[in-house]
């Protein structure tokens, strides 16, 4: 891979990461209840972080510290949904009823 291609790939991955993190933030701010917020928090944010860390791995190079970045990526992909599940389950055990159409909670 030539260096220019790598540079632009890093730029593209970073922008994708920023985009999905932005979606995650908008979701967390706009969605009506904790369950729907957990969706974007676990998914869009995981993907955003994934793209960001992939960009870092590509920048640093896999030979050096980059594999730590890959490790981090793997770790976030395992733990983020688990944490979201734990939070959603805690909400469920507290007895918080999921929002449905027509509910005026926001």
């Amino acid at each position: 891979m030539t260096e220019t291609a790598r540079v632009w790939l890093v730029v593209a991955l970073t922008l994708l990461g920023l985009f999905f993190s932005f979606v995650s933030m908008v979701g967390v701010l706009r969605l009506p209840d904790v369950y729907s917020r957990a969706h974007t928090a676990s998914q869009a944010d995981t993907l955003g972080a994934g793209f960001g860390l992939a960009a870092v791995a590509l920048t640093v190079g896999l030979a050096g510290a980059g594999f730590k970045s890959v490790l981090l990526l793997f770790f976030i992909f395992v733990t983020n949904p688990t944490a979201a599940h734990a939070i959603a389950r805690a909400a469920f055990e507290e007895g918080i009823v999921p929002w449905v159409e027509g509910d005026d909670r926001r």
Partner: protein
Amino acid sequence: MWWVADAGPSPGDDDPDTEASADPEATSDSDAASAPASGAVIVPVEPSSTLRSTIAHIAEAAATEGASALHLVEIASWRNGDPESDERAAAAERVLERAAAWARADLEDSEAPGAPDVEVVMAVLGADGYLFGADDYVRVLAEYAEANDADRVVLDPEYTPVGNTTLLQPLEFALSNTPLSVETAPVDRPTRRERFRTEATTGRFVALFGLSLAFYLLLGDPTYWFDAVTGVATAAVVSITLSRVSLDSDPAFPRTPMRIVRGLIYVPVLLFEIVKANLVVARVILDPRLPIEPTLNRMRVIVGSGLPLMTLANSITLTPGTLTVRARDSDLYVHSLVPWAREGLFDGPLERWTRFVYYGRRAARLPSPRERDDVAILQGPDATEELPIAAADGGDPGSGVESESSGGAAVEVESSDDSTDADGVTDR
């Protein structure tokens, strides 16, 4: 049916020389206000962790309340004449004798005035036929109670006649339909930490040791002697303390590498699904009208417990639009953001992939959850089932509470590994 009356006279008759139990009105001077406990008390016995404290509680209660006899009964889970029935009867008798010895010792130590008058009787019930379920157990117990003039049943909180299923609540419910009074002995149950622990085997130890050492050296410098020494020490500590907790089955030769290979095939598929679905959900979220229709759904999945269930639940959560709220045995409660995501979930591609990863290609061919009729929508206009939640705010309070309590007994045992295994230690 046979029973052993170890103290001679037929159980339940009132000894003429005891004022305490001769007259039901003047039971025992210490505790006349308490339960109408002049008759006999029946205690179903089964080896359990709380049996000792239950016996202690019963002996004390029987002594203070002036019960005439303490019947320790074992309900047979075998049938006389079957192979091995003799051994099982002998084992049951040993348990009964031990319990009776405890009861007698407790009665001797008791300072209540009625203590010397309480008889201890042992019996094995129901060995002349097969018993199915709580109703049969109650029938046998009620017959025995009538024959022996007993009016009270005290249950050990950990009482499980069948071995590993929780029968206590159905049993209590069925007993409440009889004239017998029922109570559960108020003894402390041990905390249930044991279910996280499995047996320690060499295979698991070696696997965990290798994994943690590899992880340590990956982060450190494998060629530097200091890292090698500290790595071995750390891995030893980790595998000694955690090999019982982290892995629930031994690594096996053809199976474990195959699972890793199939898992590697699954990763790009999952990544593609995640990106594709994320784009759709991003459009929904960035839409100014916010066109969401969230519902909670239930889906019964056919994957093993433990790691396969965790893989499936995490895959569902990672795929946008669906979020696993809880995993109870094989029932997954999944929150979906848009109907499109719900339909995709019910088609079951993730379930099939999980089965492929863990059990191979042939196991992956099965009908989708929708075709199996293993799905339910719990909310919204298309709801097919009630929400199993104690409605805390909003919603209607009556309906949810009821279904929670009726379902609670059967699903007592939560699948324990759905969120614990996430530190990257796997048994693949």
